[in-house]
């Protein structure tokens, strides 16, 4: 029976809460809370992607597009029109959902590699639009001067404040997603993954559920994009290219895509590997990254979250 235990979640929440203080006392990791903000932003996307790919079994290689839509909607509306960032965030999510429906309705009828290519193509097209529509998007030089976030006069202007904002949202999304997974809708999604024929024979409206979960993942990605734009105060298209979509895929594959935990572990790992730990290898960085990915794929088919299961297996023997 799929039941998600509460203790690890509480433990993880505590860890997130106290981490900035731990990091603050050790100079060598003083910048880690800053990295954790990005890890959190990626977690939002991978949580949605985990539901879409790991649970419902639908591949998306265009998730960076929704991330970009959120970021660009936020940036354009705040910079060119001076609207409130929170309002823009919501508009971003609405536009992302509308695009997700538009793309999802025809795409999600496709299967396997065809779906992968369709979403990949969608992602590339959106990237080209970001790059070409200079008047709105600033082209490759991007948009700068995006305002930060504030709520009732409280400014999220330090790393610490933004850290808690992002991780609060990550937890909200995490809990929401876990609740969905344990509900009727979650069962329907998992059922679709295994057999569309059997699911629809049980009365599951397969295409509706696929689109719903696609929209959900798009909304989370869009939210992440807005948070990114308002934190960095700058965006440019290369952040949202297809290699980022592949990086997201790598995140949930490394972490393990059959559990939402995997999305979080993967986002963490890839963020720290690529922003910090692998710098050590300089020119070999890329190769080491590839080798880690390959080793995990070979030896940990269920990703890093599969390790406890493997260890348990040893003990049982």
């Amino acid at each position, binding site marked *: 029976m799929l039941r998600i*235990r509460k*203790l*690890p979640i509480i*433990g*993880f929440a505590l*860890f997130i809460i106290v981490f900035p203080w*731990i990091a603050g006392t*050790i*100079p*060598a*990791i*003083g*910048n*880690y809370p*800053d*990295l954790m903000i*990005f890890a959190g932003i990626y977690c939002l996307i991978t949580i949605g992607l985990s539901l879409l790919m790991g649970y419902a079994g639908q591949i998306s290689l265009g998730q960076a597009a929704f991330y970009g839509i959120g970021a660009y909607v936020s940036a354009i509306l705040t910079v060119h029109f001076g609207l409130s960032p929170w309002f823009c965030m919501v508009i971003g999510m609405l536009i992302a959902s509308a695009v997700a429906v538009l793309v999802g309705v025809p795409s999600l009828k496709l299967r396997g590699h065809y779906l992968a290519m369709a979403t990949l193509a969608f992602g590339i097209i959106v990237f080209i639009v970001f*790059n*070409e529509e*200079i008047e709105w998007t600033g*082209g*490759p*030089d*991007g948009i*700068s*001067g995006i305002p930060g976030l504030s709520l009732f006069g409280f400014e999220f202007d330090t790393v610490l404040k933004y850290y808690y904002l992002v991780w609060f949202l990550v937890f909200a999304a995490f809990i929401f997603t876990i609740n969905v997974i344990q509900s009727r809708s979650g069962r329907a999604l998992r059922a679709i993954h295994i057999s569309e024929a059997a699911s629809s024979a049980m009365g599951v409206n397969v295409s509706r559920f696929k689109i719903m979960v696609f929209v959900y993942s798009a909304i989370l990605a869009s939210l992440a994009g807005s948070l*990114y734009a308002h934190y*960095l*105060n*700058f*965006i*440019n298209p*290369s*952040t949202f290219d297809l290699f980022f979509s592949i990086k997201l895929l790598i995140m949930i594959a490394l972490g393990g895509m059959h559990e939402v*935990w995997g999305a979080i*572990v993967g986002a*963490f790992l890839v963020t*720290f590997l*690529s*922003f*910090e*730990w692998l*710098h*050590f290898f*300089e*020119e070999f*960085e*890329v190769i080491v990254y590839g080798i880690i990915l390959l080793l995990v794929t070979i030896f940990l088919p269920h990703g890093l*979250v599969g*390790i*406890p299961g493997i260890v*348990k297996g040893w003990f049982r023997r």
Partner: protein
Amino acid sequence: MRMKKLLIVATCFLFIGIVVGPALAADTYKVGAVFSVTGRASFLGDPEKKTALMVADEINKAGGINGKKLELIIYDDEGDATKSTLAVKKLINQDKVCAILGPSLSGLSIAVVPIAQQSEIPLVSAAASYKIVTDEKTGKQYKWVFKVPQSDSMAAEAIYSHMKKEGITKIAIITGTTGFGKSGRSELLRLAPQYGITILADESYGPRDTDMTAQLTKIKGVAPQAIVNWSIGPTQVTVLRNYRDLGMTNIVFYQSHGFGSKKNIELAAGAAEGVYTPLGACATPDALPANHPQKKVAVEYNKNYTGKYNEPVSTFGGHAWDALNLVVDALKAVGCDRAKIRDYLENKKGFAGQHGVFNFSANDHNGLVWQDAFNMIVVKNGDWAMAD
């Protein structure tokens, strides 16, 4: 079980952080740099990193700065805005450097301007856009930010004024879709009317395209007097080769200043002959007249770089040379005091660098005019030559 896992993850964080964390060094001047050493803009960051390391090495071998060693901390942002920002923050908050060089790309430089402004640290960008140093809202220069490369508008002016001299009025432009190409395109379009130039065709291509025959075919159809190509990397060579293959050599060909590496002449396999390009001094040391103010530094830089790395100098490496030497001059004069370094840089005059003689002021944090910064170069017998 999961708690245990979290514990392991947390321990990993701490452990790796401590091991990889930078060693504390005493009695040094720390200068930070953020270059796009790998990734989509490695053609910028790679020579920049090599140049900066070389210059720092030379300085330390010669006894350092006022007896103190120069410690250069270089981070690779891989052309990614997030990494670039994180690296700059890390240089400021953790490495506590005196000044920062880079980033290599315009967009990424613009992205970190607010951080430099807020943290009050001098930042000498190695990217071209005027937006890096100019606050578009007020028209003023950002207090803490400088840049050493010529603005793209300068290259466009150099090209257009040469055209004017040659009596060329009808042209076609073909540009890359990267930041470099797009910025050049907008300057070319903006400045054309001032020089009485009509743009008959405006084409572009992606950074990984394998063939631009289609775009050039269209240009051939409109029969311009000259073509300006503005891009970077191997594609600018492919354009040239396609142009030659299409038998368009009766049309004058201008390359942007991104063409400034001899490797490009080689790769063009003869197709570069007769091509005009505006270049900074460091790209063409041998073509410079003996009395040229930059002759000495350019020749020396080329000799040392080629000697050390066994590859020709790229003009982009010259930006790192300029940026680092400016900062070193400042350190020599005022020591590691961020505010004093800034003031020193803002008042620096007559600095003969690789890309021009810099004269900074409160109204000009770039310190260059195009007549000084660019020489119009033509490719003759497989080598650079002054165009006039």
